[in-house]
């Protein structure tokens, strides 16, 4: 894990979507704020939010069973994130440790709605569902808003929730197969009327 001198970090962590989903927002982080040092499973790490975001590039969120953190506008299982950024085995720490470590870095955390009443064996994947900046339990959002962070990507949806988003359908299908999930629908998200105009062959 690359390390910097404490006190030299200055960055703006981007939170992709505001509470009303209307625009991108920036969360200010004070210049000179020291890099948080944390101990996980007996190992010390200097983590900062930018490196966490970078570590997740090219990765797809796994299904959310209960707890999640919101990074780059997507919901992620805390243990998946911490394992990716630290290289530790997931068995080396608990979900709560991972969640606490990531919230210390400024990432909002939450609990998937309805998980407490859900049978443990029938958990639904809501991994990359976009969230408001707080990440707290929120009421269901219209599918169009849920799709907004994934414009240009292929998505799999079920019950108005985005299960996974990837640049190509192969990535979507691979994720579904890997996690034993089944979607209702797969398509590419577009944002213009022209892109979804019917097209009889000329």
């Amino acid at each position, binding site marked *: 894990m690359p390390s910097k001198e404490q006190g030299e970090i200055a960055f703006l962590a981007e939170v992709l979507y505001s509470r009303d989903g209307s625009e991108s927002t920036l969360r200010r982080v004070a210049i000179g704020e020291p890099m948080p040092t944390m101990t996980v499973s007996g190992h010390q790490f200097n983590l900062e939010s930018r490196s966490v975001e970078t570590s997740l590039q090219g990765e797809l969120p796994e299904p959310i069973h209960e707890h999640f953190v919101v990074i780059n506008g997507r919901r992620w299982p805390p243990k998946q994130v911490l394992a990716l950024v630290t290289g530790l085995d997931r068995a080396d720490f608990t979900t709560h440790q991972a969640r606490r470590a990531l919230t210390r870095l400024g990432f909002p955390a939450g609990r998937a709605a309805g998980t407490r009443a859900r049978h443990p064996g029938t958990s639904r994947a809501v991994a990359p569902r976009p969230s408001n900046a707080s990440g707290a339990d929120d009421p269901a959002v219209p599918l169009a808003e849920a799709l*907004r962070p994934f414009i240009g990507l292929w998505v799999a949806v079920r019950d108005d929730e985005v299960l996974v988003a990837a640049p190509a*359908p192969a990535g979507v299908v691979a994720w579904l197969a890997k996690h034993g999930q089944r*979607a209702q629908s*797969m*398509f*590419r998200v577009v944002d213009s009327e022209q*892109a979804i105009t*019917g*097209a009889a062959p000329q």
Partner: protein
Amino acid sequence: MRFAFREMPSASGGALTPRPIVDIALEGLEVAPVACLLDTGALRTRMSAEIAPLAGIELTGDPAEEFYVGGVKTVGALARVTLTVTSDTDEFSWDAPVWFCDPWPHPFGLAGLEGFLHHFVVTINAYDGYLEIEPDSRHQDA
């Protein structure tokens, strides 16, 4: 079977006009039914060629045709595929010709006359934002 029109996000905020979309599963790709725009003006049923290998369909050697769709010149390769639509209570499968096209500019497949509309009685209620499809019994008996 009833399908609510589907909304997509608009770049300028809000949502685009909801469209009549049917989710059609290909045999071999049941985990991810492909969203298809109901297109009464389209003769064929077409999808992106990217979908075919995911369903285990090899297009090599299949009949192909060049055509323009949405102003884009593309090549479609024909394959006969078992398609399935599913609702909470019903499921209907049929064998159909599907043209897998490369390049494919659309975010959805297109469900046209051949391959889809010939198999169903379709009711579109755009005012209330849904479409209903019922398997055509005459086709089943044929």
